[in-house]
């Protein structure tokens, strides 16, 4: 298929040597004709329809497009992570409510230091996906190498093809040490192929939830902090629930939390966070002007 023809309104025919590329339209020598001829338009249209009828459907063709390869040009980190890009909407940061939903399964009450081995086995046994929403992922003291163990488990999961989505809280203020800790985590783990996302600094993302394969849920009060790492600093309670069937709403819930849009590099996401923090503090006309300026940006 090497045509470069367009039929408009069953009247005009546009044809010539130019492909629709930057080179053709900017600097190549090309010649083009735009003909006002209903007869010619009919003939061209018939030819295009015949070719169209003989072509496989879009769906089949689309599957053969190397979408991941084209994605790699957009994404600094990993071929396999969903694409990210600059935010376009600077007005709506409200937390998205989500209805409760029921499921049946097998439960274990997981108190205090019981959490760590359960978490690690869950990650190690993940078959397809791991979705995590976490308020704190930070280790102040290194007496327990727990964070490093979990990180190694997550990286191993990503290497074997498990999709790992790690959503972390973003502090509204830079004074909160978690702001930098979580940015460090994002940088470190996105390089390893883990889809780390940062929540908006405009809401408090207070989740402590791990969902594996849409069916194995570890949920409760355990943050991934020093407290539960060493089990000596905090009393915590969570539950492990292995559902009888998959529940896609678990992914829907975590994926619908509002996030920093541009995760292509640390510089870009920190820029966006700074802008959103400014918006958070501004009000009235100052805020409106800021929004107009941001939305009008190239």
């Amino acid at each position, binding site marked *: 298929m090497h045509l470069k023809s367009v039929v408009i309104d069953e009247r005009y025919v546009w044809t010539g040597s130019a492909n629709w590329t930057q080179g053709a339209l900017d600097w190549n020598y090309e010649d083009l004709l735009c003909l006002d001829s209903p007869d010619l338009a009919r003939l061209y249209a018939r030819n295009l329809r015949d070719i169209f009828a003989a072509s496989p459907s879009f769906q089949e063709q689309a599957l*053969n497009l190397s979408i*991941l390869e084209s994605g*790699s040009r957009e994404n600094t980190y990993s*071929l396999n992570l969903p694409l990210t890009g600059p935010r376009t909407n600077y007005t709506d940061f409200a937390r998205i409510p989500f209805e409760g939903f029921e499921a049946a399964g097998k*439960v274990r009450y997981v108190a205090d230091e019981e959490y760590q081995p359960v978490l690690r*086995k*869950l990650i190690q046994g993940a078959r397809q996906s791991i979705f995590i929403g976490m308020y704190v992922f930070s280790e102040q003291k290194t007496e327990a190498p727990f964070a490093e163990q979990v990180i190694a488990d997550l990286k191993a999961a990503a290497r074997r093809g498990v999709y790992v989505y790690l959503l972390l809280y973003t502090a509204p203020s830079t004074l909160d040490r978690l702001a930098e800790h979580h940015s460090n985590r994002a940088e470190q783990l996105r390089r390893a192929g883990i889809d780390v996302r940062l929540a908006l600094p405009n809401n408090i993302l207070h989740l402590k939830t791990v969902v594996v394969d849409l069916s194995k849920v570890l949920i409760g009060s355990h943050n991934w902090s020093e407290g539960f790492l060493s089990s000596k600093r905090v009393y915590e309670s969570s539950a492990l629930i*292995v559902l009888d069937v998959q529940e896609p709403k678990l992914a829907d819930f975590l994926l619908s939390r509002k996030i920093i849009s541009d995760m292509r590099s640390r510089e870009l996401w920190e820029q966006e966070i700074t802008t959103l923090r400014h918006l958070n503090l501004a009000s009235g006309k100052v805020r409106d002007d800021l929004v107009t300026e941001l939305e009008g940006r190239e």
Partner: protein
Amino acid sequence: MNTSNRQPPAHRAWLQPIRGVAAGRVADLADCNGAGTTTCRWLFPIAGLILLLVCLLNAQAQGAPPDVLYLRDGRTLTGNIIGETPEAYRTLLHTSSSPIMTNVSVKAVRYVVYGTPQKARTALRLPETARVLGARDSAKAKFLPTEAFGEASLEAIAAARKRIWILAFYISGGLDPTIDAFYNTLRDKARSGLDVRIISEFGQGTPMPIRNGTANFTHTLLADGIQVGFIQEYRVMHKKVIIIDERVVFLGSSNLTGAGMKTSDEFNVRIECESTARRAAADFLRMARQAKPFEELK
């Protein structure tokens, strides 16, 4: 910084038809110039056999409810997964024309929602996971984001008949109607003779304004007959658990505050299960042995 170039090239061919398996292409196997040779005498029956097997497989796979593959680039594929390897889902894709057999790389997939619960249980090893991780108690679970938690917890304490035991990192009334209604109902229940107990945190790390607020609120609760105890030790009581009538347990990220029921992004679960309620109650009593009444606090 740019690691995309280091991705293994195998992923580029993430979705290629398996040669000779798509029904329309099996005949290619029999395309042989040397008709009448030994090879061809065997090739025709073998090709016929393969064709028959593929037809049977197609018929069986197409009869089953479809599996849906959710890709990392946001698209979905519908078909029947007929085999899984560590690298790929072997999938008979449903298309507008004839079905196509493809290998979908696991690294292109976010998650799969299987067509039948049985298929999910087997592929994700749900019974085995529950057994290995000690999730033994059958339960009904309801997953509760922020607002849903506020409503469900209020409804549950309002329906309590004998007792309400609570482990709470923070206790404080608030201006928000949901949290206000929660504590008012709790106080009503205590006044009407139910066994209502709360264990909360009052450690060295608790900031002074919160200490003062907790002190005032504790007196209100005590006056209504609610038993209130505090953990005051090096280890912080961070649990968020509500146990009702040895039958229902709430666990999750929500503190019993306005933030936990209204403003923050939270995720909790309501578990209806007597065994789990008994285990949570045992944990409560363990904490109760370490708790101090308000007048003994430093």
